[in-house]
């Protein structure tokens, strides 16, 4: 029961808890009216190699922690959302703290590929109003978890 993002192994996070947290706040998707924009689109997550996955997941989760979740809680009055938010934020925090992608030179092209994917996501995020973007990114956690599940050993 652990994540294996290529060389990066992460224990102590139960994917079931993240799914339950998201299921409890799925109706946040109804607050996302910009249905013509999908942040985590196929070009970001499809055909990611194992080696690339560690770089990409780290960039995505750090962004969620520092930009998507931060300051969002001030607006999330609904306690159900606050609770789900806390579960996701703290578990993402655990994952990021345990990810140590290799910084060696021969991995440069792989990390660059992961960075280009992440930039696709980040650029789409920044083209929206910050609160709309946070709501959309929050609503797309099911897409993120579905992708993360591919690297989870049940």
């Amino acid at each position: 029961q652990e994540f294996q993002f290529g060389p990066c192994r992460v224990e102590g996070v139960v994917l079931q808890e993240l799914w339950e947290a998201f299921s409890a706040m799925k109706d946040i998707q109804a607050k996302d009216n910009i249905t013509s924009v999908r942040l985590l689109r196929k070009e970001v997550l499809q055909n990611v190699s194992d080696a690339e996955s560690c770089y990409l997941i780290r960039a995505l989760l750090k962004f969620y922690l520092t930009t998507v979740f931060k300051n969002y809680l001030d607006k999330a009055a609904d306690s159900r959302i606050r609770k789900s938010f806390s579960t996701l934020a703290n578990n993402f925090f655990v994952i990021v703290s345990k990810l140590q992608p290799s910084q060696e030179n021969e991995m440069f092209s792989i990390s660059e590929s992961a960075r280009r994917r992440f930039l696709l996501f980040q650029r789409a995020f920044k083209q929206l109003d910050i609160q709309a973007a946070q709501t959309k990114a929050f609503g797309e956690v099911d897409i993120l978890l579905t992708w993360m599940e591919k690297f989870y050993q049940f």
Partner: protein
Amino acid sequence: LCISGGLPQPTNITFLSINMRNILQWSPPEGLQGAEVTYTVQYFIYGQKKWLNKSECRNINRTCCDLSLETSDYEHQYYAKVKAIWERNCSKWAETGRFYPFLETQIGPPRVALTTDEKSISIVLTAPEKWKRNPEDSSISMQQIYSNLKYNVSIYNTKSNRTWSQYVTNHTLVLSWLEPDTLYCVRVESFVPGPPRLAQPSDKQCVHTLKDQASALKVKI
């Protein structure tokens, strides 16, 4: 063209999805019993630009529409909407939430084949199949979509009135050392770890182990 908002909206609009067969269904608008109401459906792929028509579901009388083909890429997410039309009036669109087939489809039960001898039952499971447009199209097993698909096999001994279960990942299971001349009932449910998914158990199938030849011989002697 019709006067929009002249009718109440259809209600309870949801997707019923089993093995990626995705049926949009809804309830008629309230207060229009007896009226000859028809419906028109559109669908939308999240992240794209336009609502798309479903030609087979334009001005239909029934309150469901098969959108399996239009939503067959299960890694995409979708919306659908329906409006009611009666004479020159029509309702506003009633819209679903975001529908994610990969997460929300129910995994149907496997096909279960049982064969017995005196003291054993062999169970052969065939994984449920993804919906396909034409019967002659090549089949895709749900196992190919959900690689961690498992089966929860539960066995009920009608003589001892006891039930026990077993999780299996492969497709054959032999229950040996059973009691001869006994009726056993088997039920199998597909299970995919991860997000909470609805699952449908198979119908209960019962089979009799054969009489024990040795006992029959003893009786003769």
